[in-house]
């Protein structure tokens, strides 16, 4: 897994790429929680994630709940098909705020 972090007019965008699995999800979790400590609006770009397991999903869940409690904006954007089917398996597609594209997410975050 690799990742990129950028700032788009006050919104932090974290883009993960590759496989988010048992090996890499601790790092994904750390990045997400770190970013949440420094921003009021976080978008997680999952367009280039080829595989995510339940440890990766758990990291997203924890980050989302932390953001809600802290009153911060948190959304998933451009969710790849492989990630979406895993979210659907546990019905989390109905829980997360999901935008089809990064542009949509940035427009709503603004």
């Amino acid at each position, binding site marked *: 897994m690799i990742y990129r972090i950028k700032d788009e007019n006050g919104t932090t965008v974290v883009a993960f790429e590759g496989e988010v699995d*048992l090996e890499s999800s601790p790092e994904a979790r750390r990045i997400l929680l770190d970013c949440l400590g420094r921003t009021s609006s976080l978008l997680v770009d999952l367009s280039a994630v*080829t*595989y995510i397991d339940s*440890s990766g999903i*758990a990291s997203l869940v924890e980050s989302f709940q932390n953001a809600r409690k802290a009153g911060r904006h948190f959304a998933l954007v451009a969710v790849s098909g*492989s990630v979406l089917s895993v979210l*659907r*398996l546990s019905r989390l597609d109905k829980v997360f705020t999901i935008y089809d594209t990064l542009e949509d997410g940035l427009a709503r975050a603004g």
Partner: protein
Amino acid sequence: MDGREQKPEKVIEVRDLVAHYGERKILDGVSMDVYGGEIMVIIGGSGSGKSTLLRHLVALEQGTSGTVKILGRDPAALDAKEALALRKKIGVAFQGGALFSSMTVGENMMLPLYEHTVLDRTTMEIMVRLKLEVVGLAGFEDLMPAELSGGMVKRAAFARAVIMDPKILFCDEPSAGLDPVIAAALDDLLLRMREAMGMTIIVVTHELESAFRIADRITVLDQGRILLTGTTEELRETKSERIQNLLQRRTQEEIVDPEEYLERLMGERLGERALL
């Protein structure tokens, strides 16, 4: 599927597997392949050797002769570190659940995570709850196995088997003893897990309805030998009387060898002599 680049790879390869319990031959030259992302169902009557085959596939037992390869590796030939790495990629839902009775459902599920990962405890707890949600046992993590019904134990065992999102999932009689609605829900869950996670799933069952609902291919085992491996269509259309008897739940007309039968009754067969 999960979107990874996938071509049909052999994830399980069995060649000429022979296994005995004492003098009794249970598996008699079994050869089969299971491909990545498929659901292979092994069916057969009681005593056909299907559960024994499963125990060999998950490397709980080793055959008298023949080979079993999982993800290209022979489990018997691996050192401890390699065996552990392979074990992390495999989940097994045992027929009886095999949950530790002194631990809660959640603790049972968390055990493999503690053993094989360095995940944060919060992550582990969310994973446990996620899997319990998926199997319809949300909120049951603090109960003891003894407080669950038979169907719930099976679902909890299933949830534990998939806690690490294994590449290969083995299920021994997943729907046996469940009411039809719960059994169908479990079948549906297997299909969804395969769809979402791209798992390869091997199911041993005598529940034909379930087998035909979930299988990409079915292997029919009879007296330790494979009668046929094929799609559900191929199975339905086969002219084999033994298979049709099995599918129609007709009892087999036993072929009696008088000499062998008498020797058996008199305890003169090799295996029986050893008992005396």
